[in-house]
């Protein structure tokens, strides 16, 4: 285990962008966990300050204040909590649907594969944002519904990815060896197929973290996700865009937060791809 980690660390070091990405992800996580202590005005999540409206960035309010006098820095910091929660829940939910379906379809093939893949094709034929918007609109504009909607739009990608991996894994001699030994199918799936198709899934999931954050921000921006006064980045941009020409900071800082969070997860995903690359892999 230690040897593996050291090997991974050695490889990560070869690509400095991976390290940057990992550090940024770590920062996001730290901000999310310790938001109440790090944010300079933690009460500004709920409390309105009628005397401090539209303050430009200053030492007191590094990112300025918004149309209700709330400290934007604090709201951006609290926003990491929401974005991380959305990212985690959506990716986990999408994996929970896509992973088992993809593995089963890929390993067993035949009619079952055909049926499962046609169903995923139906979902894949919609642009994910459009599908998520439609589902979210149908369920009602709440953050929870937006997350469900994104997960529903997302799982087919995982199902496809894992299926294609499983199709190649099932031909490996060690799967046949397991059958020759009398290993049950559930055990073959869990012990032989799943662990060997996980690498690209991990990469995809870590990159999707960014895309999911972006998608949920888009839904919130369109009014289909989080509702005021939640400090959700997309929502903050929607509200702030009215004042963009006169008070640029209200939109700019949440926007930068989205940019950096998405970038962080993408860099991490790219780095993981290299670390987990089966060709370069020695574990």
């Amino acid at each position, binding site marked *: 285990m230690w040897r593996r980690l050291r090997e991974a660390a050695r490889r990560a070091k070869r690509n400095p962008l991976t390290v940057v990405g990992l550090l940024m992800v770590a920062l996001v996580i730290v901000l999310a966990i310790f938001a109440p202590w790090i944010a300079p005005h933690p009460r500004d999540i709920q409390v309105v300050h009628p005397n401090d409206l539209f303050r430009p960035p200053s030492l007191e309010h590094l990112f300025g204040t918004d149309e209700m006098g709330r400290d934007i820095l604090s709201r951006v910091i609290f926003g990491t909590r929401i974005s991380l929660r959305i990212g985690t829940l959506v990716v986990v939910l999408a994996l929970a649907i896509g992973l088992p379906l993809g593995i089963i379809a890929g390993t067993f093939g035949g009619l079952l594969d055909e049926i499962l893949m046609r169903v995923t094709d139906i979902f894949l034929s919609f642009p994910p944002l459009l599908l998520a918007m439609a589902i979210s609109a149908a369920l009602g504009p709440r953050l929870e519904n937006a997350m469900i909607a994104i997960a529903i739009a997302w799982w087919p990608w995982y199902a496809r990815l894992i299926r294609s991996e499983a199709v190649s894994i099932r031909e490996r001699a060690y799967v046949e060896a397991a059958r*020759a*030994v009398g290993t049950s199918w559930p055990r073959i799936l869990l012990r032989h197929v799943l662990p060997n198709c996980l690498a690209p899934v991990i990469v995809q999931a870590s990159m999707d973290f960014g895309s999911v954050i972006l998608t949920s921000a888009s839904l919130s921006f369109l009014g289909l996700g989080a509702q005021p006064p939640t400090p959700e980045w997309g929502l903050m941009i929607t509200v702030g865009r009215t004042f963009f020409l006169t008070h640029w900071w209200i939109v700019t800082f949440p926007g930068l937060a989205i940019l950096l969070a998405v970038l962080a997860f993408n860099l991490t995903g790219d780095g993981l791809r290299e670390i987990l690359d089966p060709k370069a892999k020695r574990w």
Partner: protein
Amino acid sequence: MPSDNILLEVKHLKKFFPVRKGVLRRVVAQVKAVDDVDMYIKEGETLGLVGESGCGKTTAGRTILRLIEPTGGEILFRSKKLAAAGEEYRIVNIATASRRALKALRRDMQIIFQDPYSSLNPRMTVGSIVGEPLLVHGISRGSEREDRVRELLGAVGLKPDHMKRYPHEFSGGQRQRIGIARALALDPQLIVADEPVSALDVSIQAQVLNLLEDLQGEFGLTYLFIAHDLSVVRHISDRVAVMYLGKIVELVETEQLFTNPRHPYTEALMSAVPVPDPDYKVERILLEGDVPSPVNPPSGCYFHPRCRYAKEICSQELPLYRDLGGEHFVTCHFADALRLQPVRTG
């Protein structure tokens, strides 16, 4: 005819793969990978199975283990482990065995693979790879299982502390030993060795072959040894079956095959065996044309388009697989008449 020490008898074994086309996936043709194969393996012997690539020898091996479902025929196996109280053994038809019976049969028959790289799960330690059969069959648990794995690793010439390592830390030869240890774990009677040394360096091949021979003596194993290297087959086999296009064309005791081949295809194969003597002139028989497609085999004898002795009847009638006497099985109309060129011995 066959005596009572027969461990495995295959009768009319067939495996056809459907070729599907179009949107409706209609079956437009059949690939006859194994086409009416008859043979038996005696307890404790090594039966070599040779032939060109694509002749169906690997499919035959997998079908016998029912890793591939047979299309037809019987696979009769004399199992000691499935014997009821008071019986010495029980004859089971593997081809029709139920799922439960099949799982029990897995303890009697195992397989060794050609590629030592893809045959070991890269995410499992050697200990869990070799111990998996024991776990799956609930044979031993905990430290008892660990002891058994150590014992198996020792039997194939690996060190007990290799248990905790991963397959990539081993060389090809060592990995093949791990695969052999896994096959031995359930104490099987029959092992199908599917080209177990073809992927190894020549220097390692001899080591692994010797190991297989030693293990055969030690554990009383019976081998179905699939290969395309004739010198390897000659070294290890008691009897050899030659396959061509899904059929067995000749099956006989090894030295007989090399010194007294009775099928023209065997003769052609034998003429390709190198003899370590620079003065020895052999007439190389070069087969013309390609192996015909098993989707659409030639009429009559499958070998007639490439056979230099072919006569009219060969393109019309399929020769029978028959015993010339002394357990020398041949599929040729003229097996009695032809005088074929042997391989020089020694």
